[in-house]
């Protein structure tokens, strides 16, 4: 397993190069090659999951070679408990998304080449342990995403693509400033994230808070936290199905992952100072606000998009608890939200491919003609609602339990909002799947084998993690415990060890 992370990250890029060399008049071949290029990464991910040492807090499978010596920039990758779940999630979702994209018929070569580049970018963000490298991957991911939404998206794709691009780029610019300030503050100058741990303490508290806020805005745009969320409904609705899945399943997690990796690790004191307002309070607001917006939607895809905002609020609330339950729940929620929202977007894609619209009011009684589809949809909706026995229940309970110890008032609000969540989900379930069937849709075919192949793996994971959450909790426990201690110790000491 030498250089396993490097292989995982760059194999899709290699696949993209192969795809670009294939003749455009053979779209079927291109699609199969694209699928094949995502599989080795997934297989390596499975091996990584099996071989990962769950007891240590150290970074594993580290690859480190100097890249640009004069600025102490390294090619430095590795995983710990926080990042491995995200790496696995990405490696799992990408093959499914390629499969879900087999219906694409315009510019097939470009689409799949860009998608594979996007996978490399996403994996790179999660494995990078050098801040500079992290930044490069963070930005690299933007370009394919811009084109994937802009060329293959819905009617308002151009607006959505540029909005997504500008929002994220605005955040990255702030991240770059903070990164440079941190670099020049560390002695000796370094971009290595493990070596920067706690180094924020060389600055006075005010500067630390400013740096923390600059990084927070960069990541909050990705989460997306109110008031930086307005790009999300546009991008999610206009993007093609598979890209919505990637956006919600992986890209949103980059925000919270970045907070844990950079803000928590490097600026622990400021994290404790600012967590209440910027994470706990804002997260709770997100939960309520997202749910209320979802209640008001008439478009099925937009409803799922706003539900993402709501669910990511739990991650923020859990992170801000600084208790083992809270932070473990937050990361588990990141993983669970990745699978459940992916499932929801895939389900929306299935019905959109058949009916060519997504108006909730235009459907009804689909359960009668599409029984299998309805079964999976019910599972996904109940999972999103947090029904016991399904994966999100565990993570949301952990978040609430953890948060209760530190922010009881907010926890009450967040827990009550579950009623709203149940409200919009059940109401939608009723309007789309139950009730009277519109005769236009009487002949709709049920899900075919390919669609089922994209839905079932995710449904199985949702079920399995509902019963046995330790599959993920064991992975993340050690590292998160260490991180949590680091934040509390760093803040208590006031100054981190130099």
């Amino acid at each position, binding site marked *: 397993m030498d250089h396993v992370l490097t292989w995982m990250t760059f194999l899709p890029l290699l696949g993209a190069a192969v795809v670009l060399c294939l003749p455009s008049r053979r779209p079927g071949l291109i699609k199969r090659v694209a699928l094949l290029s995502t599989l080795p990464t997934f297989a390596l991910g499975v091996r990584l999951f099996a071989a990962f040492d769950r007891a240590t807090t150290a970074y594993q499978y580290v690859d480190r070679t100097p890249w640009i010596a*004069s600025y102490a920039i390294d090619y430095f990758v590795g995983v710990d408990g926080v990042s491995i779940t995200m790496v696995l999630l990405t490696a799992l979702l990408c093959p499914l998304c390629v499969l879900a994209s087999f219906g694409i018929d315009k510019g097939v070569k470009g689409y799949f080449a860009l998608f594979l580049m996007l996978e490399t970018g996403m994996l790179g963000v999660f494995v990078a342990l050098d801040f500079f490298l992290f930044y490069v991957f963070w930005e690299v991911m933007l*370009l394919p995403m811009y084109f994937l939404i802009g060329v293959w998206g819905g009617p308002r794709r151009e607006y959505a693509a540029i909005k997504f691009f*500008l929002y994220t780029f605005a955040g990255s610019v702030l991240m*770059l400033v903070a990164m440079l300030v941190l670099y020049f503050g560390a002695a000796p100058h370094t971009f290595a994230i493990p070596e920067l741990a706690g180094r924020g303490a060389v600055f006075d508290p005010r500067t630390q808070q400013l740096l923390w806020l600059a990084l927070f805005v960069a990541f909050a745009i990705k989460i997306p936290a109110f008031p930086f969320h307005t790009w999300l409904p546009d991008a999610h609705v206009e993007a093609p199905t598979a890209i919505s899945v990637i956006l919600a399943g992986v890209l949103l997690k980059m925000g919270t992952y970045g907070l844990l990796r950079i803000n928590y690790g490097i600026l622990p004191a400021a994290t404790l100072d600012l967590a209440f307002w910027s994470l706990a309070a804002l997260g709770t607001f997100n939960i309520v606000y997202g749910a209320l917006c979802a209640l008001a939607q008439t478009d099925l895809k937009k409803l799922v998009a706003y539900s993402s905002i709501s669910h990511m609020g739990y991650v923020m609330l859990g992170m801000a608890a600084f208790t083992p339950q809270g932070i473990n729940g937050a990361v588990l929620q990141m993983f669970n939200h990745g699978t459940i929202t992916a499932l929801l977007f895939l389900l929306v894609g299935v019905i959109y491919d058949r009916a060519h619209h997504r108006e909730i009011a235009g459907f009804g009684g689909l359960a009668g003609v599409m029984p299998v589809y309805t079964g999976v949809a019910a599972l996904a909706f109940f999972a999103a609602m947090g029904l016991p026995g399904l994966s999100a229940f565990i993570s949301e309970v952990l978040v609430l339990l953890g948060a209760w110890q530190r922010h009881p008032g907010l926890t009450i609000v967040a827990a009550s909002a579950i009623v709203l969540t149940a409200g919009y989900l059940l109401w939608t379930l009723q309007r789309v799947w139950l009730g009277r069937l519109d005769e236009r849709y009487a002949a709709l075919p049920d899900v075919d084998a390919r669609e089922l192949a994209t839905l079932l793996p995710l449904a199985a994971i949702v079920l399995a993690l509902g019963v046995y959450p330790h599959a993920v909790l064991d992975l993340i426990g050690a590292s998160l415990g260490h991180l949590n201690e680091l934040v509390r110790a760093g803040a208590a000491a006031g100054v981190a060890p130099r």
Partner: protein
Amino acid sequence: MDLGNAASVAYSAPELILIAAAIGIVAADLVVSAKEQLGAVALLACAAALVAAIGLRMPFSERWIVQGLLHGAEGWLWSRMLVVDGFAVFFKLVFALAAFVTIWMSLGSAEVQDGDEGEYYALVLASTVGLFYMASAANLLMAYLSLELVSLTSYVLTGYRRHDRRSGEAALKYLVYGGVASAVMIYGMSWLYGLAGSLEYLKIHDALTHGAADPLTVFVAVVLVLAGFGFKIAAVPFHMWAPDVYEGAPIPVTAFLSVGSKAAGFAILIRLFYPGLSESGEGGAWAPLAGVDWPGLMLVVCMATMTLGNLAALGQRNVKRLLAYSSIAHAGYLLMGFVVLNDTGLRAVLFYLVTYYLMNLGAFVVVMVVANATGREDMDGYRGLAWRGGAVPAVAMAIFLFSLAGIPPLAGFVGKFYLFAAVVEQRFYLLALVGFANTLVALYYYARLVRTMFLDQPRGDEGVVALDAHNAFLLYFLTIPTIALGLYWAPVIALAERSVRFFLG
């Protein structure tokens, strides 16, 4: 040390090659009817000048090129009129490459290839000689002469398309603005001469160090000189000529002006203001002489230049004008490295000029390819470019534009990273924020052009774009390094670092 006249001839090899080729082309123009042969001669002359410039950095004992690039000779040439040092040779390499690509472009340009372009090549070579001398001038007189040589040839090149009203208008505007700027500059130079009693930078430096003049007087002289230099780099408020000239000139000339002329402006600016009007201190830091606050002035100019360039670019519908405003904004970014008064800032400027050379020339090559095929330079002429035969130029343009916007993993990002790193390291936080805000604004208009090329569908009246082998090769020549430098740039930054070395007598 003064190298003497015999050695001066040897060290002037690149310029002599260019002059000989220029004269040869003018003479041969009378008898040769296949003018592209003259272009080939000019191309060869640029390549030879490039090799000779590399040779400048090679003392005769060391034959290994890389070694030679890093440990070159230094000294006075031609009775202390010019210098040869790392800084000068770095710029000569850039100019030779810029002229090389310009002539390569001209050979494939429908605007230039009118069957009577012999003297055109001679003019480009003559202009390149001026650029070379601008990099070497260590004397106000030489600085003025070389700058005027570049300006005069540029006026003629801009108006090269005699029967095109736009071209004529651009040339006239350029001439009028240039004349005024140059008059103001030489007036300022006369003040400096009067105050210091010498035209030589180092003697001016010594005189001012010993308190020869009142700081305010020196400041006035400096501001006047800046008018001329600011005109060359198209810095606010001397930028007004750029959009009109860039729009009217033949595209290869525009490319040449935007890269060669601007880089030379920076060469002459840095040499006068750093070794001439500043004192070198500890750890690569510089301090302005005699309490003259030119860095404060330039800080304002820098922020104004990038902001105005970017804001004005937002509304442009003509791609050449858009790139003109973008190049004004880039002069502002480059000035960030200039105002921080540090060797790391200068290193960033030199490195950025290399990346700027690649991406800006590349963008103009695409503009030329589109103009050749369709005769259009407006934004609508780029609609759906990727979907009507222009996939390669469109992808290349996207790469150049995103590089100009500073997105990794492209060369422009690395350049911006070094500039911003220098700014943050010296704690110019306000400048850093203004710079970052500008980067964001700039992304909007670059992305808008990308959107037009890829996201919009052609409506059918834009014409088909085909790429011939000649221009395709040129595009690859510029695209590949733009990506490669974004992934690995250590040798170039090392060269830039070693080139921040001034010969100080």
